[in-house]
């Protein structure tokens, strides 16, 4: 359900960006997102919600692309990077240490916007 609110925030950010570009003179083709694996976002739900929300709006013809950013942690004992797994309690496989430092996976970003000028 929170994908609806995320979509609202995304559209507001797009509006803010477009105002600086002169909205009437551009066509947005792609909104390229980076979504971390360690977030509450389900990419397909976000895409579906966005497509429904922008129907008939200035973003109607735009497409969302999502690059999934892997969830990566750093072992606080030996500094090795690893991919934390729920099944292993997110512990480091090398030293069995608890997950202290997250290197990536918390991203919720608009990485770039592809657009054309009319």
């Amino acid at each position: 359900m929170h994908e609806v609110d995320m979509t609202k925030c995304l559209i507001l950010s797009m509006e803010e960006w477009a105002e600086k570009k002169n909205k009437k003179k551009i066509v947005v083709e792609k909104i390229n997102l980076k979504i971390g694996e360690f977030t509450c976002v389900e990419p397909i739900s976000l895409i579906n919600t966005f497509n429904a929300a922008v129907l008939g709006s200035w973003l109607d013809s735009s497409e969302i692309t999502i690059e999934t950013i892997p969830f990566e942690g750093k072992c606080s004992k030996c500094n090795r990077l690893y991919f934390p797994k729920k099944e292993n309690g997110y512990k480091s496989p090398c030293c069995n240490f608890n997950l202290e430092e997250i290197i990536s996976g918390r991203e919720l970003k608009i990485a770039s916007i592809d657009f054309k000028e009319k």
Partner: protein
Amino acid sequence: MHLPISDKIELNILHQNSHQAEKNKIKFNNYNLLCLNIMSSPGAGKTRLLEITLEDLSKKFHSAVLEGDMTTNLDAARLEKLNIPVVPITTGRACHLDANMVSGGLKLLEKKINPNLLDILLVENVGNLVCPAEFEIGEHFKVALLSITEGEDKPLKYPIMFREADLILITKVDLLPHLNFDINELKSNIASTNPKADVIEISSITKSGFDLWQDWISKKILKFKNN
């Protein structure tokens, strides 16, 4: 039509919410008012926790509550009996409070009391272990409740909520003798997800753990006021 242009903006999707949350926090700081965001699944005991907490806390500190609820004012009505300022925020279909809702709640609170006279604002979020974790409201600390009836595995199943929390209250521990529940496994799962969180076991029936919880809040308020 011209050739396509790629504008690399690297902007947080939730930047609109984060921006408002930052404005809320500046307001709280200007009022010298500590704000706690209280989160949990429905039925973990947030409102009962606040009822008991505020009976004592409001004798030492000037307190107020923003009460998030999807459809009713039932929880707000319970807390209003404690004679403290309470502002209900009905979220409708939204399953969490966001920074704009809290900003609106704060404006209503300002009509009830001068926030400069307050020490602490407790914000009871909507019962949900997913959404509230991603939406900042301008709080200084996040408190997550987890009742033992929910199972030992919840920190692993809902890791964002428990990763984001500064304090985790394990509630309903009076039920331990009646359940097949391994509290050490739960604590291990909490430590796996968030080794830095403070953890307190608490019961609204026996009142065990409330001294530690009240002490945690008091220290946070005094440290905040002295900074």
